[in-house]
């Protein structure tokens, strides 16, 4: 049992490394990706600045909102990892090759996604380093229990994001064409995750939806923990909610995948 686990972890490490190498094989593409991220980030900051300067009263100070947006953007970029190859492989039948490998398909794609996430986190760190002078006062929590809670929250956010991706990508088994489904995921994520606005600023009509759906636990929850914006005693509840969503959707995705595989038609030589 332990030997099996060790072997799977070793395979996972190798898959992680290979996936990182794949991403590094296209440095120009990665640079353009990063530049577009910085541009969207800058534009969003300008928009919010304009909203605040027009005298609109927000339940959050500008400096606090700025800190939140910086962290949310960093998290959003790092966790927007590429499950698209998985969706594409369902559509084209390339999943046959994934199924022939002696590692679970879910594990294979989780390792791929985590490697993308890790690499994108490095890019974010570089971008943050370059933009440090223009983003003053970006202090995050430093006390050990909260830092540990943040690390757990980040891991759970990555698991949850992967589970959401994995579930949505499987829509290709039904539609045979993944884009509609993947764009639905992207839209829901952008509205409800807190990527462009903290959930605390949502209008009352949207708030119940944001609280009921899992998306806020990908960005809003870890961002709030990182910036110390949580109420006393709230962190364990948030972590429990993140874990429940992450593990629940992961298992659901696995069940649905097994179900679809039984009906999959991988035709042609």
């Amino acid at each position, binding site marked *: 049992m332990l030997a099996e686990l060790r*072997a799977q972890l*070793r*395979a996972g490490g*190798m*898959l992680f490394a*290979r996936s990182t*190498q*794949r991403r590094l*094989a*296209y440095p120009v593409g990665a640079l353009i990706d990063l530049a577009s991220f910085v541009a969207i980030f800058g534009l969003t900051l300008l928009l919010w600045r304009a909203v605040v300067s027009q005298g609109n009263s927000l339940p959050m100070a500008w400096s606090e909102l700025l800190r939140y947006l910086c962290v949310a953007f960093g998290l959003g970029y790092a966790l927007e990892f590429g499950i698209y190859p998985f969706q594409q492989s369902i559509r084209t*039948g*390339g999943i*046959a*090759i994934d*199924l*022939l*490998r*002696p*590692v*679970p398909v879910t594990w294979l794609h989780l390792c791929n996604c985590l490697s993308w996430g890790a690499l994108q986190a490095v890019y974010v760190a570089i971008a943050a380093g370059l933009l440090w002078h223009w983003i003053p006062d970006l202090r995050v929590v430093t006390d050990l229990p909260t830092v540990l809670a943040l690390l757990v929250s980040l891991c759970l956010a990555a698991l949850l994001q992967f589970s959401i991706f994995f579930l949505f990508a499987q829509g290709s088994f039904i539609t045979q064409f993944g884009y509609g489904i993947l764009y639905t995921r992207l839209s829901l994520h952008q509205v409800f995750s807190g990527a462009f606005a903290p959930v605390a600023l949502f209008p009352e009509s949207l708030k119940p939806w944001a609280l009921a759906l899992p998306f806020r636990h990908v960005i809003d929850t870890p961002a709030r923990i990182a910036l110390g914006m949580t109420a006393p005693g709230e962190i364990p509840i948030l972590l429990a909610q993140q874990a429940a969503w992450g593990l629940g959707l992961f298992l659901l995705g696995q069940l649905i995948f097994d179900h679809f*595989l*039984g*009906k*999959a*038609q*991988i*035709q*042609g*030589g």
Partner: protein
Amino acid sequence: MTIAIQVNDLRKTYVQNIKAPGLLGALQGIFWQQRRQVPALKGLSFSVNEGEAVGLIGENGAGKSTAMKCLTGILRPASGDLRVLGHEPWRERRALARKIGVVFGQRPQLIWDIAVRETFNLNRVMYRVEPALFAETSALCARLLELGPLMDVPVRQLSLGQRMRCDLACAMLHAPRIAFLDEPTIGLDVLAKEQARQLIKTMRRRFGTTLILTTHDLKDISDTCQRVVVLDKGSLLFDGALLDFEARYAREARMVVDLDAPLALAKRRSLGARLKRHGGRLLKSVPQKVVVAYEKASSIQALTRVLLASLRIADMTFEKTDMETIVRGLYAKQVARRAR
């Protein structure tokens, strides 16, 4: 002899969407789509012993690749019993995956964006290959398939033939107990095909690898397999030794005669009648070439006498019917039978 593969009454049906033609058809397809069930395998049964080499042949759509996918655990059969190395492939796919090597000619397993060596190393870890075994198999593949200069090149920059050679090597690195090779020589030139066959034969000799091979190049089969399974529209048409297959379906041999001077039309007709009386059949008669088919070796002397008496011969050769011709004839018979 241990049974490696046992297949009993294997069935698989696909559902196909039928699209009406044109823009109107596409619009209509939004609201309503016609579907049809296409039986890909209709009760296939056979078994393969460990160490055997079996060629799976059949026309396009005969069910070869579907059978391969069921055997490797990618597809779940509609019904039937299936055991591969003691595993039920569909349920125990990962356990089986470690013991088999698979090449799908149309779907390479190499990682597109990085060097060939990286996929090799990934497979070493995923398949848990012992270092000594990996050293031996990778050296063998590199030598026989001439992979040396390709190892550090990104896969996307390789030609189709180079990719196929690397893909074949990938499937052999863990010395699988069974190699399922679905069109492994697709896109290869004559020399590379020969190298691929050499690797397959060497792996079988060295590791006793059981081989299941589908191909449209029948030389692959005559070079590497002792047994042939012929599929036709999802059913078994023939299952037996390659020699039996040739004996049963290659009853005719040929004499090819090159002439010194063109043969007149009238003379061609009379020649045909005389050959027929001695057990021959005039297959082809162009002005300076005559091809005569015969079934029994005992007819050779009489037929040769007729030819020598009737024609001014420049050269004469005897040909055994090759696999390609046999299979072509077999397919033609099936098409005619279905038409009736």
